[in-house]
């Protein structure tokens, strides 16, 4: 895709991101942060693309390092967010 299209998509997504969250109750600040942090682990997709067969440069090895780190980010981020929200949920049910 040409640079202008990418910048166009970027601009729209940033504005959407600003509109998405207006008033968040403080109870949800931590889960919101860790949950969106897990989304930023989307770099995992970029790391996978870089692990091409027959590429004799360093790229696949650096990609492997990126893949491991991004996977920790994704898996750890989603699980820990779920654990926190489950804790909140438990009280919601008991009232």
């Amino acid at each position, binding site marked *: 895709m040409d640079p202008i299209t990418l910048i166009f998509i970027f601009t729209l997504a940033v504005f959407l991101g600003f509109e998405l969250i207006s008033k968040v109750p403080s109870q949800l600040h*931590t889960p919101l942060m860790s949950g969106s942090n897990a989304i930023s682990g989307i770099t995992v997709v970029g790391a996978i693309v870089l692990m091409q067969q027959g590429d004799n440069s360093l790229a696949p090895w650096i990609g492997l390092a990126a893949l*491991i780190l991004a996977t920790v980010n994704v898996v750890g981020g989603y699980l820990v967010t*779920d654990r926190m929200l489950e804790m*909140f949920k438990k009280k919601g049910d008991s009232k």
Partner: protein
Amino acid sequence: MNEGVLISYVVAAILFIFGIKMLGSASTARKGNLLSSVGMLIAIVATLTEANLDYQWIAVGIIIGALIGVVAAKRVEMTGMPELVALLNGFGGAASFLVGWAQYTAVYNNQEVNISYFEASVIFIAIFIGAITSSGSLIAWGKLSGKMGGSPITFSGQKVLNLVFIVGTFGLGVAFTILSAGASGPSILYAFLTLSLLLGVMLVIPIGGGDMPVVISLLNSLSGLAACAAGFVLGNVVLIVAGSLVGASGLILTVIMCKAMNRSLINVVLGGFGGSSSGSKELEGEMKPMNVADAFYVLEAANKVLFIPGYGMAVAQAQHVVRELSDLLENNGCEVGYAIHPVAGRMPGHMNVLLAEADVPYEQLLEMDAANAQLPLTDVAIVIGANDVVNPAAQEDPGSPIYGMPIINAHQAKTVFCLKRGQGTGFSGLQNQLFGMDNTRMVYGDAKSTIGSLVNEFKNTD
């Protein structure tokens, strides 16, 4: 990239959008998190259908990463949550700068492909943001986990040095954009990668523990922008969309934190806080200590008690015993609540997470404004390891560095108990005027054992 993959990316992006939206509301948050994880799975699986991938090593990478992630998420204590979030931010940032670096290596070695100015400049930006995020998060993790001191590290000429680093990094970025395909390309890359990593360290070391909520949410935002920049490097839409969503929503959280401290983002990042207590007044009045037995008699007679927790409660791990005390108070016919300041603790929502772990009912958690409405009617306000967020100087002393910061009006309660380890000042080095007020009593000692003794007093009278 084939159309099937692109369509899957659109689906993933929609799921991320709904996921973030639903994370903003209590009733839908858990489902939102699930939706966004499904989006992630779709994006990953779709990407795996690309041609020519080295599946063996991809499997190795995913298995190792997933194992570490599962263990970290299951084992972390709720008190260790700020460190974990900082560390995960750092991993995300590191992955993004590695992607930028790897893509450059791949293209550089492939003589048939030219590196355009656009591509070179986004590689620079991805490495710059990713590296700052990763080293900055690592320092934040060190401060939060106590592996390094939490106090600000400052030295003369720090700001000038930072400026030199920033200008130097961008200078190298421009050089890289022009020379990326030449023989000097890789060495320029190593140079600005190193400078960016150093810059991340330099920007976080002068920031004190109390400013950590701002820094963590800012690093969270940056980790999204780093992923977004990596998306530009690869021309990958889903990275751009997901990354900028996270970047924008993280920035909103950062702004909420800044507002709660009445400070601008620039002010926090440039560290205009540490040690500048020159304008603050000495303590008026004197601190009046009280022992646990007397505190118990006051509490036994109280009809309404508000707990005001701060970072000290997290350090002392006192949340469970606080919950126990509040149960006993309720059985005694007393109304109990918790007043939560938005920046209490070391990350946004820190106190809520700790109290939820101790099974404190959600209805008892009051946001700042609601708590302030109730404080004049409160018999006893119990301040547990909170300091600046209850300092009346923020309202009364225009010379105070925290003047204008919204606080919880603990001083309006009939009696205030301040649970404190010793007589020192808070992280900002400010005298807390609350401690010297007529209605304030200092209960010295470890918060957990103090509250534990109160619990025992209640149990012994039954």
